[in-house]
């Protein structure tokens, strides 16, 4: 317990130390995750909606493959498929019967599923922020260049600095929580009271 308490104290100290390196790591983590989630969303939301709507051979197999990679950016595609599946078929029929073209139907369904899709974007952001393996493989862990929160944690753990690693982990969770809170408020369009 003492070990965790000390890690918590280190986390607080680090957070308020305004250390250039630490803040650089945090900002890089946020920047990379934001860019990734934007790219995933721009590709994933329309693609997920189209996959959900279209009937084609091998659809089940494709969805299974997407679900297998849920830990990676396709998470947005996978969760969008689930979100659009959840919309009543009657919404789709109503839109088409009122004259929606195929493209207009896709946008109508995205708008109708916006709350669920918003949740999928939040999940994707969380996954991206906590991503370590892919980041290590693609970018490595170069100080001031590609070092992000997760790779810094892995580095400290590898060096046996467990409390330092735990403290960074706590900061990561705290930042993740703050971002999810902000996204949720944005998604709901209202502030918690």
């Amino acid at each position: 317990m003492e070990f965790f308490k000390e890690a918590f104290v280190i986390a607080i100290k680090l957070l308020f130390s305004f250390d250039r390196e630490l803040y650089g790591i945090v900002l890089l983590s946020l920047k990379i995750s934001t860019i990734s989630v934007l790219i995933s969303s721009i590709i994933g939301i329309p693609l997920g909606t189209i996959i959900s709507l279209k009937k084609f051979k091998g659809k089940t197999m494709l969805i299974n493959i997407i679900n297998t990679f849920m830990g990676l950016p396709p998470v947005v595609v996978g969760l969008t498929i689930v979100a659009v599946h959840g919309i009543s078929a009657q919404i789709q029929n109503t839109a088409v019967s009122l004259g929606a073209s195929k493209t207009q139907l896709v946008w109508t369904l995205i708008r109708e599923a916006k709350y669920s899709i918003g949740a999928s974007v939040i999940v994707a952001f969380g996954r991206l922020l906590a991503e370590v393996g892919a980041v290590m493989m693609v970018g490595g862990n170069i100080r001031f260049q590609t070092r992000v929160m997760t790779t810094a944690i892995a580095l400290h753990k590898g060096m046996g600095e467990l409390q330092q690693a735990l403290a960074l982990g706590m900061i990561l969770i705290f930042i993740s929580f703050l971002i999810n809170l902000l996204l949720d408020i944005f998604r709901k369009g209202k502030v918690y009271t």
Partner: protein
Amino acid sequence: MENIFEIRDLVKQFNGKTILDIDNLDIKKGLITAVIGPSGVGKSTLLLILNGLLEPDSGSILFEGKDIARNLKLGDSVRRSMAMAFQKPVMFDGTVFDNVAYSLKLRKIPDKEIKCQVYEILELVGLKNIASQKAETISGGEAQRIALARAMVYRPKVLLLDEPTANLDPANVTLIEEFIVHARKKYSTTIIIVTHNMFQAKRLSDISVFMLNGKVVESGTKELMFEQPANEKTKSFISGEMIY
């Protein structure tokens, strides 16, 4: 009188069971046609096929002379000249105004014009006062009136109505029936209404079509259908007997 739809040898099956098997049926332009019959005889399936929401297995449907049953390229343009209101209407996320404006926005009508047309039709269905209300908060009767307004706001040539007053209170039924008659009179809309309520068919329709087991048993003017039915099954149905 000119035919707007000419249906020939139309067949639709689900899981090997024939749901619809219509040899010959014409729908007259500018009139109200009521499709009557017990539940589950293929009335709603017919509407879905006419609206292009379901594809028939075989047969042809001529709409203003063009075969729409097979010609997928005609899909969007033909569908845009029709509108359908379902038995259980669903509302899009947004206000009552947003819901009625939806079909106009699809057609890229300027905002100013949308505002005018939406308020005009909401006034007709008696719901102008709730235009800014969230659509999810309205009652079943109001939802059906909004669904009708949403379908009629772009003045379609054909209005397809699937049991538009089922489970509604008499006041809402009257309002909806008045709106249907008004739409036909003011805009010369061809209206096909599916109903199992023969009194409603008698009140509203010019032509009645009686269906049983996916087939058209009899069709003709409502006077003929209700006063001198030619078929024994029709006679039994309009006299309120159980028929199979």
